[in-house]
């Protein structure tokens, strides 16, 4: 039998799709002009750039002049937050509202601003990984210059009440940014209806290239530059446009936002089978709301086992996944997201995230569900923590 290879880490990054690659290829060796150049080759590039901008705008129900290409999700987040912070300071507004379980691109940017004299309110999330819009309302002050709340969480996949939060911000005239890196293509997004002022997206989560993304900035909202230099992106973001990546991003956005409903239905069925199957193992729990979650996200804590050894062993069986364990985060603490929903450290160390895509088949799900209990059995049978749990709580067996 061939060694299995089942990629279940699409929340980390995705495979570039054929259609994206094909769309991008001509812009490497044929249409390689600089969009700022006056000759035909340059003008072709400018046209392709405009078309890509229109495509991305349309998918968000925005206007083309509201889309700015960036180097990815992290840059978009940095730009929105630092830009609004600079704006706010001009009128003495130095208060930002975010949540405790944002991506580090948001959290570390906010922490940086705190060191520069800004005040940041980190809203809590409930045990299901959801933010209460009332908390946003209550946190808004006269000096609040920005609310930034992620659309969908990258670890536990929970989808936030963005429309409600947007409405509250609009009512209070506070700019609202959302990191939609995980949401795009999984959830229908309409920036106008949802009262979104700025939105970050990233290519490599939706089968485009790494290092490309965009920031939607609502027309009329003034946002100072993060990157200064040439006149690209209407002088708002300098740097010769990465046209192959931009064309690829537009293709990926088109593919990802086409038939979202159908895709959701198919993928979430497989996801639910995975969740129900893994939860049959004793002493496991699903992290994050069961209903309000991304259609491809499974995040489960398995007591008595440690996440990294679980991942290494799954890898031996050809299943590629991720974990919120400290050992995989490069720090000594387990995932801030899992701690934020109230998991004790020891449970957070034993978490497993599987993020499936439209390419994950029913056979893949069968194989994963056959394999995980074997691996858990093996790790629990050598775990002194599991031994202790069993003794203290009168549990028998390993799975």
């Amino acid at each position, binding site marked *: 039998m061939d060694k299995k290879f089942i990629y279940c880490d699409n929340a980390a990054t995705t495979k570039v799709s054929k259609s994206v690659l094909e769309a991008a290829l001509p812009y490497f060796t044929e249409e390689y002009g600089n969009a700022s150049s006056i000759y035909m080759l340059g003008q072709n590039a400018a046209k392709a750039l405009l078309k890509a901008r229109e495509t991305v705008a349309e998918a968000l129900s925005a206007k083309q002049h509201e889309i700015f290409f960036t180097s990815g999700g992290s840059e978009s987040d940095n730009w929105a937050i630092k830009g609004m912070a600079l704006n706010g300071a001009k009128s003495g507004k130095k208060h930002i509202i975010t949540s405790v379980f944002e991506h580090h691109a948001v959290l570390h940017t906010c922490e940086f601003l705190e060191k520069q004299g800004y005040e940041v309110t980190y809203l809590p999330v409930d045990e299901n990984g959801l933010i209460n819009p009332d908390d946003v309302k209550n946190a808004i002050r006269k000096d609040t210059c920005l609310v930034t709340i992620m659309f969908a969480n990258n670890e536990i996949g929970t989808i936030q009440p963005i429309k409600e939060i947007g409405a509250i911000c609009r009512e209070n005239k506070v700019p609202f940014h959302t990191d939609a890196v995980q949401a795009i293509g999984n959830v229908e997004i309409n920036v106008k209806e949802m009262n979104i002022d700025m939105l970050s997206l990233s290519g490599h989560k939706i089968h485009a290239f790494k290092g490309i993304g965009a920031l939607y900035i609502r027309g009329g909202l003034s946002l100072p530059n993060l990157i200064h230099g040439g006149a690209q992106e209407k002088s708002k973001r300098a740097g010769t446009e990465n046209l192959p990546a931009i064309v690829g991003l537009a293709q990926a956005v088109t593919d990802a936002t086409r038939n979202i409903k159908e895709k959701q239905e198919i993928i979430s069925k497989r996801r639910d089978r995975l969740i129900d199957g893994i939860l049959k193992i004793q002493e496991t729990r699903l992290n994050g709301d069961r209903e309000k979650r991304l259609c491809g996200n499974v995040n489960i804590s398995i007591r008595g086992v*440690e996440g*990294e*050894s679980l991942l290494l062993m799954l890898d031996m069986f050809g299943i590629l996944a991720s974990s919120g364990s400290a*050992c995989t985060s*490069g720090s000594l603490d387990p995932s801030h997201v899992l701690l934020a929903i109230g998991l004790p*450290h020891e449970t957070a*160390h034993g978490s497993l995230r599987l993020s499936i895509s439209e390419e994950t088949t029913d056979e893949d799900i069968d194989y994963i569900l056959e394999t995980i209990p074997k691996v858990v059995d093996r790790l629990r049978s*050598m*775990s002194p*923590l599991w031994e202790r749990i069993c003794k203290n709580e009168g549990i028998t067996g390993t799975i």
Partner: protein
Amino acid sequence: MIYSEKVMDHFTNPRNVGEIADADGVGEVGNAKCGDIMKMYIKVDGDVISDVKFKTFGCGAAIATSSMATELIKGKTIDEALKLTNRAVVEALEGLPPAKLHCSVLAEQAMKSAISDYYKKQGIDPTPIVGDIGDCEECHGCN
């Protein structure tokens, strides 16, 4: 982060996994909050560690260092075992990523803690022989 082939070998096929029902000494170090616990069992014949087994909850490096440590002390005298340092475990594993060095410390502590327990069971104060084990002292992550 990349593990050496030796680490992966000991993770994939850990040596001496299990328990010893009538162990002469048992040691447990680490804690669940930090994400690793090692438990080591020894059987002593005269002054020789005739058998050793371990159980570990932890990352790949934690399992590999426990496995390697048991391999290094099996059949050795207690004196020889006590000379085993975490460095020696790391070297035998052909290196560990810097963030994982604490796992090797834990393995050394687990072994010493099992030997201490052995002495205690003999009614001998282990401190002058084994020294201060300093459980978890390397860990700055949990508070």
